[in-house]
């Protein structure tokens, strides 16, 4: 029944089976709990129930605060002890065009229209300002268009028009979200267009129950909100694994040959595959890792991407598995090679048998039931929100380059007598400095998605990281590493809190792409240096075991820490007297 929550949504079944889906989901194990406040400008009961389903599906046990009917403004703008006590992790403001209470009359002058616009702006600005005290992301709907427009086409370009007014507000919301780091727009303007206003709105349910959007649209809306939450929490997928024949091009390259496959503008089908490739390439450009998993001869498969019309090139794939092994084994290899979890992978294959085997052998891989019609493939990726992104860092844009460079490094490694020589040959340079504003987005992103080299696996939101960076009681460090092959970007983060001459390392993590480069030693040397400059004499390290971070279980011991105790929650406490510490020699130059 849980599969009802995959795109395409059967809305009426989701509503009808809502309680049963919930029961089924509640049988799962939950490692994460989150609290979501829903401040509605219309009825939200059913919406909240469906949001819960999508969150449960992602492994989040959720509790809600739900404002009374249409009390979003009062709840947000005034003191609200209940909401304060609730301590929301997310606040979602479900407003729609129905909440715009004042439009200009047709006789209004331009100045008067401007005042009405300013009133609406200041209402929402005051909501967002007031919500800052909750220190959490705010997810805000922009505006859908009303079903009717009394001025007809003029409504969209005449200053008195409602359409014109709402579009202008949407533009203002977008500008605000560019500035305000904790404001995220839930684009119902797009969703309603996608649905068609006739289906997005339902006058009957509006007048009888004050639901501002139709029941039919609720699952799509809920899924969209959960997509944003997932992305903020670093749960978006990282890698797209593609089959080749009838997925990246039409036909079978082994049978039809390079000139026989359908790809390019000569045929409708070829053009459709080209469009799919162009979309995949856009994902790649914004940092999604691409891989191939195909039952094919390697050389023949590779040849497909030399097709004169092919947008994707062989080099665009970080991992390329074209052989006759079972696909689930290849996908496991891909995950190991790139160093990501299976739960970060989406696999696309037009063959239902292959999909089925992969899904049953590797349940944590996402395998959408894309069918075999190329026309639908993009929608399956997009509407399942696999790759939802809430901001674009330079590291995202360069990620594929990093992985590519890593493969060259691996090849070089083989040519050296020993590892030290190899490291030396890399001519590594690091920049290790306290957190600074330009890097907070990237630092937060790393904190939320790094699983393997991560001592405590604590997650923090942007707004919290920002506070820590400004707090004198914290020692914070980020690390960037470059070498002769290129820039690895910001890949290492650590910070600790000072109490009584002691610094407790709260968080220490590193991206897997710089493993085994001694970067952790360079980071720690710098950290000790900072501690000394503040006259501290002790460092406490904490290792909290998770399913994924075994690789750092001995790190503190390797650095010369002494074991103190194991706490009841399973975390192990280590201690280092700073005067006993000898800097660890490494091959990294510090800038």
């Amino acid at each position, binding site marked *: 029944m849980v599969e009802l929550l995959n795109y395409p949504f059967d809305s*009426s079944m989701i509503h009808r089976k809502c309680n*049963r889906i919930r029961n089924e989901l509640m049988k799962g194990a939950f490692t994460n709990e989150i609290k979501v406040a829903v401040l509605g400008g219309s009825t939200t*009961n*059913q919406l909240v129930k469906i949001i819960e389903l999508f969150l449960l599906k992602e492994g989040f046990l959720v509790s809600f605060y739900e404002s009374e009917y249409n009390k979003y403004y009062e709840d947000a703008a005034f003191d609200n002890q209940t909401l304060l006590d609730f301590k929301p992790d997310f606040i979602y403001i479900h407003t729609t065009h129905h909440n715009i209470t004042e439009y200009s009359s047709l006789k209004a002058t331009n100045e008067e229209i401007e005042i009405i616009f300013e009133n609406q702006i200041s209402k929402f600005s005051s909501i967002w300002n007031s919500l800052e005290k909750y220190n959490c992301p705010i997810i805000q709907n922009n505006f859908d268009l009303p079903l009717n427009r009394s001025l007809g086409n003029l409504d969209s370009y005449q200053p008195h028009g409602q359409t014109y007014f709402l579009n202008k507000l949407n533009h203002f919301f977008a500008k605000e979200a560019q500035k305000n780091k904790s404001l995220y727009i839930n684009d119902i303007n797009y969703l309603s267009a996608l649905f068609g206003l006739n289906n997005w709105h339902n006058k*009957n349910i509006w007048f*009888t*129950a004050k*639901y501002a959007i139709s029941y039919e649209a609720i699952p799509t809306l809920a899924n969209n909100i959960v997509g944003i939450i997932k992305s903020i929490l670093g749960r978006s997928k990282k890698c797209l694994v593609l089959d080749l024949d009838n997925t990246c091009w039409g036909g079978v390259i082994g049978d039809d040959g390079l000139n026989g496959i359908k790809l390019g503008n000569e045929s409708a089908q070829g053009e459709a595959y080209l469009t799919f490739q162009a979309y995949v390439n856009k994902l790649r450009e914004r940092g999604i890792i691409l891989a191939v998993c195909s039952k094919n001869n390697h050389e023949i498969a590779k040849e497909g991407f030399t097709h004169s019309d092919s947008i994707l090139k062989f080099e665009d794939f970080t991992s390329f598995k074209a052989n006759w092994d079972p696909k689930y084994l290849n996908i496991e290899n891909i995950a190991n090679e790139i160093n990501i979890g299976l739960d970060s992978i989406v696999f696309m294959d037009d063959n239902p048998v292959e999909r089925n085997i992969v899904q049953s052998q590797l349940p944590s891989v996402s395998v959408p039931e894309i069918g075999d019609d190329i026309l639908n493939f993009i929608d399956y990726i997009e509407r399942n929100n696999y790759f939802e992104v809430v901001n674009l860092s330079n590291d995202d844009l360069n990620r594929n380059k990093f992985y590519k460079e890593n493969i060259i490094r691996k090849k070089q490694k083989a040519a050296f007598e020993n590892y030290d020589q190899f490291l030396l040959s890399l001519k590594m340079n690091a920049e290790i400095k306290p957190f600074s504003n330009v890097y907070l987005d990237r630092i937060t992103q790393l904190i939320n998605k790094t699983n393997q080299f991560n001592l405590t696996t604590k997650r923090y939101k942007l707004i919290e990281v920002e506070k820590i960076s400004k707090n004198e009681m914290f020692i914070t460090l980020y690390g960037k590493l470059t070498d002769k092959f290129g820039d690895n970007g910001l890949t290492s983060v650590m910070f600790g809190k000072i109490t009584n001459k002691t610094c407790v390392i709260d968080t220490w993590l590193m991206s897997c792409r710089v493993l085994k480069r001694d970067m952790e030693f360079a980071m720690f040397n710098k950290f000790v240096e900072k501690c000394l400059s503040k006259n501290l004499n002790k460092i406490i390290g904490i290792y909290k075991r998770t399913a994924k971070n075994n690789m750092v279980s001995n790190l503190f011991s390797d650095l010369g820490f002494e074991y103190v105790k194991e706490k009841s929650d399973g975390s192990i406490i280590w201690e280092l007297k700073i005067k006993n510490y000898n800097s660890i020699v490494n091959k990294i130059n510090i800038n």
Partner: protein
Amino acid sequence: MNREELFEKIQEIFRDIFDNENLKIEESTNSSDIDDWDSLNHINLVVAIESEIKIKFNFDELSTLKDVGAMMDLILKKIN
């Protein structure tokens, strides 16, 4: 669709909405007989019936849906 066939469909919808596989309704069943039959679940019932039977209720009709029997009367009138 005859009255018995319709009754079976309605029964299934009630079981789904109220999350009880053994729920047995009767024509006289009304909101005071089922704990969770509040105004919100009433909407869920109406929406589910509309989509299952492919009919639409109008405003006046919604207020007449007092019990299962009344629902069935109205539905049968609409589809026949």
